[in-house]
């Protein structure tokens, strides 16, 4: 039997922006190229689809900074309630090999003048069970990148002697 690890994780984050703005940044193609695909730092080989609607798909291929390995993400919107909820299924490959299939539920709830996002991923992770912790951490970083997008901060890479630090800063 092929090894499959089923796992669920749930992340919450509060944003200082109204649900309509957070929902727009989450789904808009231009905004996504910044916070989700990190163009500039990552290499985006292709990015198609992404129209907002049930049954709509988004397909992409990208490589991390300084690496040649190609990662793909194929997403399918399953439930869309504008400014309130997004449910999508997505499948990922690394170097042509399927690594996971997941269902993600994103709830956008008003909190004061801001928005609380509740992100729940239910996933089937193939072969390496260590992927679960990595996916959760990667998703946490994406929710941070979404905060930076909403606050107008930009991703910067600061070269050091032995490594590169990635951070966000507000343009002058």
């Amino acid at each position: 039997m092929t090894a499959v690890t089923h796992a669920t994780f749930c992340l919450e984050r509060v944003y200082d922006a109204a649900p309509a703005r957070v929902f727009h940044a989450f789904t808009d193609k231009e905004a996504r190229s910044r916070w989700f695909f990190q163009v500039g730092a990552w290499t985006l080989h292709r990015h198609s689809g992404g129209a907002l609607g049930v049954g709509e798909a988004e397909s992409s291929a990208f490589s991390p900074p300084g690496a040649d390995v190609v990662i793909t993400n194929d997403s399918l919107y399953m439930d869309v309630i504008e400014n309130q909820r997004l449910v999508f299924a997505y499948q990922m490959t690394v170097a042509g090999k399927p690594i996971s299939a997941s269902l993600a539920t994103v709830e956008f709830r008003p909190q004061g003048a801001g928005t609380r996002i509740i992100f729940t991923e239910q996933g089937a992770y193939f072969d390496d069970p260590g992927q679960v912790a990595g996916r959760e951490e990667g998703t946490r970083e994406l929710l941070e990148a979404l905060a930076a997008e909403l606050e107008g901060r930009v991703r910067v890479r600061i070269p050091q002697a032995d490594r590169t630090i990635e951070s966000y800063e507000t343009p002058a």
Partner: protein
Amino acid sequence: MIRSVTHATLHIDRVFDCTPARLWRAFSDPAQKAAWACHETWTMKEMTFAVGGREISGGSDPGGPYWAFDGTYLDIVPEQRFVVAYTMRRDGVPVSASIITWLVAPHARGCVLRFTDQGAYLDGHADPVEREAGSGVGLDNLEQLLRAERDAAA
């Protein structure tokens, strides 16, 4: 309207007295799939067993709501595993979104199926207990189909 989501994971394991290859045909061949997953009031509208392919079926009891299953295959490893994402709608209203992992492996008595449904049940319209019961009925039908075939060959 107050929106709500309930998340649940359902596991069902079944042992079948047949080869993994035979069980796989019951999932991958549209006519065979319809033979156990559909019945008088539930019909298969479309099925393309390939990554990105769709499985669309639905039905209603007399006077009851129309239930629609709309699935898309996300991952297929022949005779070992496939994953399908699907929504269920009742008279057009989405009641759930889920992914199911179907794992097939050899077993001392034939082969074993491990069925895992990871679902998001929407706005109180559906619940995981009913879903688990419904999935079990489908697998009972599959078991009967395979047993009848084996008995006919004996």
